[in-house]
């Protein structure tokens, strides 16, 4: 039992961090960023290149991932999303753009980093073993801890910094925020950069444990979508809750339903649909987000 909870908690922490960036972008610009998973993969490959191939310390790789992705996010917002949002009649049109960017990043990743699964050697060795009741490798504990502190740091940033407050105002009511003197363009760009940076950071963190390959992008986006739906789209606390709930659901579901094998994920996904049918705005979302 302890093992199942610990697995769920670790999985939840990494999921929540992925969902955070996605929900931030959604809340600010009403854009469902299909390319979020690809950004995560890109971040992982940046860390891989610096750490495994050039032999630099892990922390350098992590910072580089964050910086590269933040710049990429800012550029994508300024030159792609902003003009399209301005001129399109329906909000949803950005989905095509986002999907195009996702394909584009897939192609770039394939050309730059190749088709193979990549991984960075373990940053800490050893396994924590509590009497065979709870087994957790130290590197997982470290990454889980880092993920949770990043989440806490992000919440604090959004809560207390000037930028964070401006972005929250923007998310609540775009027009009102603009009237109150918030520079919408600037903060949209910062928000997008921040969201992309979070994706890059998770990629950099997880490359040490799960490795990275070019196929992980699309499925990661879909999983992140599910998390923000569970919690409520565009709500920071919702994304965190959604991440942990999905992590727990997988961990518990896989153990309970192990005997039935093939239907485990069917049950998880079907119950998700039932949940949303009953509570369409997720746990904490605004209705009709």
């Amino acid at each position, binding site marked *: 039992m302890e093992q199942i909870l610990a697995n769920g908690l670790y999985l939840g922490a990494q999921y929540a961090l992925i969902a955070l960036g996605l929900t931030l972008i*959604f809340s600010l610009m009403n854009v*469902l960023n*299909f390319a979020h998973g690809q950004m995560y993969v890109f971040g992982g490959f940046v860390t891989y290149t610096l750490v495994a191939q050039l032999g630099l310390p892990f922390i350098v790789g992590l910072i580089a991932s964050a910086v590269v992705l933040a710049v990429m996010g800012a550029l994508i917002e300024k030159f*792609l999303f902003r*003009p*399209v949002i301005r*001129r*399109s*009649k*329906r909000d*949803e*049109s950005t*989905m*095509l*753009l986002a*999907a*195009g*960017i*996702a*394909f*584009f990043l*897939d*192609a*770039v990743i*394939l*050309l730059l980093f190749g088709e193979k699964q990549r991984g960075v050697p373990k940053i800490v060795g050893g396994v924590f073993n509590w009497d065979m009741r709870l087994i957790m490798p130290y590197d997982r504990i470290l990454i889980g801890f880092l993920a949770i502190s990043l989440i806490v740091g992000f919440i604090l940033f959004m809560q207390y910094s000037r930028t964070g407050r401006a972005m929250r105002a923007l998310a609540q009511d775009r027009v009102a925020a603009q009237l109150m003197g918030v520079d919408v363009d600037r903060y949209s760009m910062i928000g997008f950069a921040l969201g992309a940076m979070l994706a890059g950071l998770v990629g950099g963190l997880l490359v040490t444990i799960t490795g990275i390959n070019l196929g992980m992008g*699309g499925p990661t986006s*879909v999983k992140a*979508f*599910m998390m923000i*739906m569970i919690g409520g*789209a565009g709500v920071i606390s919702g994304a965190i809750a959604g991440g942990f709930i999905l992590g727990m659901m997988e961990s518990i579901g896989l153990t309970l339903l192990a005997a039935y094998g*093939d*239907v485990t*994920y*069917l049950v998880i*996904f*079907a119950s*998700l*649909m*039932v949940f*949303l*049918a*009953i509570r*369409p*705005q*997720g746990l904490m*979302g605004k209705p*009709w*987000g």
Partner: protein
Amino acid sequence: MTPSRLLGVGAFLLGVFVLVPLLIVLTGRWDFYYTLTSVALLSVGAAGVWLTFYIGRINIGQGAYALVGGYVSAILVTQAGFSFWATLPMAGLFSAAVSVAIGLPILRLRGVYFAMVTLVLTEVARLTALALPVTNGAKGITSIPLPGELSIFGLTVIPDFASLGNPKLAFYLMAAVLMVLTYLVLWRIVNSRLGHLCRSLQQNEELSASIGVNTAMLRVLAYAISSFFGGLAGAMFVAISQSIYPSSFVVTDSVNFMLYCFLGGLGYVFGPMLGTLLLYFGWDLLSVAREYQLLIYSGAMIALMLVLPNGVLSLLEKKGGGK
């Protein structure tokens, strides 16, 4: 119908049924038959997605209904000995029935929530196909016979495909007929009372409910028609590949159906058809670029979006055309 519109329809039919086969004979590019057959069938599915867009819902679940339709046809043909032609409408109707059951609860959702639930639905359909015994699970259903003869009162309407020298042409013509009928129905819906009501839903659901529109009923109806198209497309694909697997229609297909609609233009009935042609055919033509295929393809997609954010057909609007 105005004369100019009649002329346009005539030119379109001429192009699809005469010019395309003629061009293929002249150039000898027989492989285009299959590509264009795919385009026709995918645009049937995309027409359904477009209709759900028309009531203001983003539908990323069409792949699920295509898979359902495909399995219905495959199972009826191989296990119950039905003729393919009988299974085709049944596949559509079964998909529609499933969509009513699923649509009733989930159509209350809007925006991204509806989009995401339909995305999950595609994965649920795949996993269901893997788990059910009747679908033969992971091993799929293979060696499905080609469509047989269809005769009415002893008169052969469609010959047995297995006896044809060129089933490619037959499949193409059939898919093209299906596509033309689909868009005829779609055009008819949009320009009827039903279409007006759908537009009112798209603009403001509360308002249209307050003036007495039965919004719940209307949504389910539109969704059912949409899924009917999806089921048809799925069944036809199964007839061509003579096999079906749980992975025959996956999340990627669902997303593609949606992208076809966006690219063509959400405000135009024929948008999804054009979008399918450009995206699907474009990919095939780009295969000469080898490892740069995806790069060029996605780059073109982004560029197109930057220039024409409301879809390719919004070009017409600048000239003063419109719907």
